[in-house]
């Protein structure tokens, strides 16, 4: 398919879109759907050239050994787990031997209703993008895919986020966040995806779509035979389950946000208390110094408060950002869905009115 090319990271130019081979898409869809509802992931191989990231191969990570008991958190951090790193190295070596492109360009993961904004994702991406700045993550949302068409998104950490991370040493202090103008909206930046078929596959599809395979006048056969033709699925009216789940998750996220806000408020109160203490101390020292000067004694420096007081450590703002992003994600999903659903509902109401 392609020649083994070794690309040096420093020679890479930024990419602005991703081209995904249909084989990769099928592979990852199969993997993630089969493993559902467990969260799984795998490695993407490919090439970044001419501002385009070509994803040409993928392989899944093996389920962790204690897969029965692992929490989703373990699976989410799989790309960096020890066993997987070894597996990854082995795989790449083997793939190289059969002349397949063996350049890791990111990883893919499954998600459940868009709930992928978490620490693990960030950590994975930070690690990957340190090795190759053009690395991406392909998020395949299995539940949404089952609702409608395939939901696949390519993300990578934004430059702002990386800069903030670097500036604050992974601590994400408010100062660094503000300075780098980082909001929850631009933690990740999305890359446009295009799916590319091999020529053989295109030819097959063309062939399948040819009129020879369709019998006109029979709607059922029309639906069953043509994979690309419109179908009745989009008229499905089971609204509740999807929305219910979404709202439930949204509630959870809001709770998390609340808790996060609480810790930050607590920190602020602590800080204020500490500052007033310091202020008092400085006042005291000042008056004491005045007395000391009169008595010709050495004065105490007012900057000595650092010795006596310690500011409480600021909680990381990253959690807040991630939770906000997550809430945003859920809201967007609901909005998207409801716009479709409400038009359906209106259509049905009209239909009912006509009947009556």
């Amino acid at each position, binding site marked *: 398919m392609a020649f083994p090319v070794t690309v040096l990271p420093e020679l890479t130019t930024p990419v602005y879109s991703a081209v995904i081979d249909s084989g990769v898409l099928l592979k990852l869809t199969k993997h993630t759907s089969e493993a559902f509802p467990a969260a799984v992931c795998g490695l993407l191989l490919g090439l970044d050239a001419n501002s385009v990231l070509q994803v040409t191969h993928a392989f899944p990570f093996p389920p962790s050994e204690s897969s029965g008991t692992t929490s989703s958190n373990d699976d989410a951090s799989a790309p960096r787990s020890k066993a997987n790193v070894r597996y990854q190295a082995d795989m790449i070596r083997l793939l190289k031997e059969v002349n397949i492109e063996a350049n890791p360009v990111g990883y893919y993961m499954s998600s459940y209703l868009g709930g992928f904004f978490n620490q693990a994702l960030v950590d994975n991406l930070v690690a990957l993008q340190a090795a190759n700045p053009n690395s991406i993550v392909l998020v395949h949302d299995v539940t949404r895919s089952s609702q409608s068409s395939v939901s696949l998104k390519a993300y990578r950490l934004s430059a702002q986020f990386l800069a903030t991370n670097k500036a604050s040493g992974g601590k994400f202090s408010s100062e660094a966040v503000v300075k780098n103008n980082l909001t929850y909206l631009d933690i990740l930046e999305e890359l446009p995806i295009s799916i590319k078929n091999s020529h053989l596959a295109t030819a097959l599809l063309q062939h399948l779509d040819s009129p020879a395979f369709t019998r006109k006048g029979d709607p059922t056969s029309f639906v069953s035979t043509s994979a690309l033709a419109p179908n009745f699925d989009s008229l499905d009216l089971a609204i509740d389950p999807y929305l*219910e789940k979404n*709202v*439930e998750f949204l509630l959870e996220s809001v709770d998390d946000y609340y808790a996060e806000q609480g810790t930050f408020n607590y920190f602020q109160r602590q800080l204020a208390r500490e500052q007033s203490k310091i202020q008092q101390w400085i006042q005291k020292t000042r008056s004491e110094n005045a007395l000391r000067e009169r008595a010709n004694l050495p004065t105490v420096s007012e900057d000595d408060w650092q010795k006596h007081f310690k500011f409480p450590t600021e909680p990381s703002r990253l959690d807040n950002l991630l939770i906000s992003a997550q809430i945003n994600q859920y809201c967007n999903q609901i909005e998207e869905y409801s716009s479709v659903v409400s038009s359906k509902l209106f259509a049905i109401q009209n239909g009912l009115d006509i009947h009556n």
Partner: protein
Amino acid sequence: MSRFFAGGSSDSETESSEEELYSESEEEKSEEELSEEEDESTEEDESEIESSDEDDARGFLKAGAKGSASRFLRGEESDESEEDESKRVVKSAKDKRLEEIDAIIRTIENAKKINDWVHISNEFDKLNKIIAKATQQGDTPKLYIKAIAELEDFMNETVKTEKDTKKKMNATNARALNSIKQRIKKNNRQYEDLIAKFRADPDAFLLEVEEILETVSQVKTRKGAEFEAAAAAIRLGAAAAAEDISDAAFSTIGRGGRTITITPESIFKQLRTILEARGKKNTDRAEQIRNMEKMLDVAATIYQKIRVLLVLIATRFDLTTSTGSFMPVNQWKSAQEEIVKLLEILEQNPLYIVQEDAEDIDEDGEEPVPSDSKPLKIFGSVISLVERLDDEFTRSLQNIDPHTPEYIDRLKEESVLYSTIIRSQVYFERAKLDPSVSRVLVRRLELLYYKPEQLVLSVEKLTWSTLPSSLESEITTYSEDEDASSLINAICVKLYNQDNRLFRTRAMLCHVYHHALHNRYFHARDLLLMSHLQATIHTADISTQILYNRTLVQVGLCAFREGMISESQQALQEICGTGRVKELLAQGIQMQRYAQTSPEQEKIERQRQIPFHMHINLELLECVYLTSSMLLEIPFMAQSGSSPDAKKKTISKPFRRMLDYHERQVFTGPPENTRDHIMQASKALATGDWAKARELIRAIKIWDLIPGTDKIKEMLDEKIQDEGLRTYLFTYGQFYETLSVPSLASMFDMSEGKATALVSKMISNNDVAAALDQKTNAIAFIPGVEYSRLQNLALALSDKAVQLIDSWKYR
């Protein structure tokens, strides 16, 4: 004994140590003999002992040996033998040392023979150590002088020969010799004159030494005999004039003797010295108290008596300074009596006033005498003495195990304390010492507030009967037909009108407690709410907080007794919901699993404990709390059903937790304790089986502790029926289309009217979606008004969002 000397000539070390063993055991034996013989001798004619001299010593030995057999037959030992024994030990230590010295000297001699200076040096060190001890005790033994003198000679000789022969010694030996040479010189300088004496006349000197050496045990016997003689003399003397001696003995000890000579004039001086010694270490307070008791007898004038009493009582309280212990009961009683005495004096002599802000009176000059126009003010504080008396009483109750008769005996003395308090109150009123009046009233109130009416009345009656009839209190005039509430009311009103905030608070709480105890719920509640104490109570001191907790709990119990379940639950929630009931009510120390309490903290906590007789029964409290929680929570759980935040909204967390735990159990046996009863009743109630719930609740034994048990049980029956009906409708309503009221009423064994009323209330509260059909007398349920899950979620979400926005607004 001769073995000792035989062994002495042997060369080897091991043997010598062995011989030490022997000698020790032998010595012990001889000591035993000695003691026997001493006892023997005491029992024999004393005059003989007196006349006995050294020569008789051997004779005693024999007599002792002979007598030992018959001695035990004779039985009783005289108590002097103990005395003897103690002295014998001292003697043997001395002799043992002598023996040791002898042994060491012998080794030195041996070493000399082979010219082993290393050995000599070691032994010499040992010797010096023992001698240092010996000289501390008494004389330097002559044996030692002889030894060092000889050693010096030998050393000089050796050094001389050494110089001549030049190579006789090896290096270590030579070094040892050199070192010992210097040490001997240094050492011998101390004993120069003794050595000189020895040198001048070695024979005479040695004779003495020889004498000591002769037989160690002989020396002992001789000394024993001497000692016996002395002891006998003392005994004789004692027999002659026993009483004189005891007096004389006191006079030698000191103070006691002097106090006998106390004259009314010197009292103030004595008192001053006692006051100065106060709080210092090593003051013998018991001694001081004895002195002052005597002084009290001597004191001539009223002023003197008052002064002595004031100091005496204070000193008595000083006896127990440690926080852990309590005042001995007899001391407490004497203190109490003395306070009464003081009050008596003050009552009879209205011109003498003991005041905290009085000026010090110069006592050296003329004794002050009050006049009608100008009463004499004496510095002192009766109220603090009374308070201290009360405190000590509480402390003793805290420390005595409440399940012993001792506790009850102690508790009986409460009436004495109470009468003392009343007496002092009357005095303060008359003397117009307002701060003291409030203080004593608080004390009095705190002895009364937790008592039921009858008890208060009988205590009052008893107390006033013991007091002189001339005493009368303005604030709390006693009359035969008074009732407890008006008494409490009078005390509290007086306290409300004074300035001290703490006293006001405490009076308020006691008042509320009293109301609650007598089932006047609304009085109690209104008073408690009007006080606004709940807002400030966390700033109060801990004992007031405890009182607040007690009051709150009592109000809750009162509400329960009155059948106000939700009020009761609310009042008890705060205390019982924490799981730290014991700690909050100061009724025992609760082991906290994670908190580490230091011993000091524990001690402080122990001091706060409420005496047992004031306790509120914790099991009853738990039972009341859980029962009222059950009656509220079960219908509520049925109502909230499966709504998303059903788990988060709870009325009583502890109840929920227990219920969960109960439900998780694989097998539930018949109920054993109160909690089991309530949990099983809750389950029965949840399924609508109200009859079973009633039986289970009725079976709880602890209800017997509430006065009017039957009334309580009837009230509970009724509540269970009501709540059972509500629960039933909440749980099963959705399965009905219509439900006839008569059948519902019969199901819950209540009148139709009541069932209708309950259902109407539920309908009007929007608890159930239904309507009453008057025509058929049935409840018609309206289907389909339940929210879907999505709707519920959406509602919850909107709530959350509003909250979030609010929290942003109030930045």
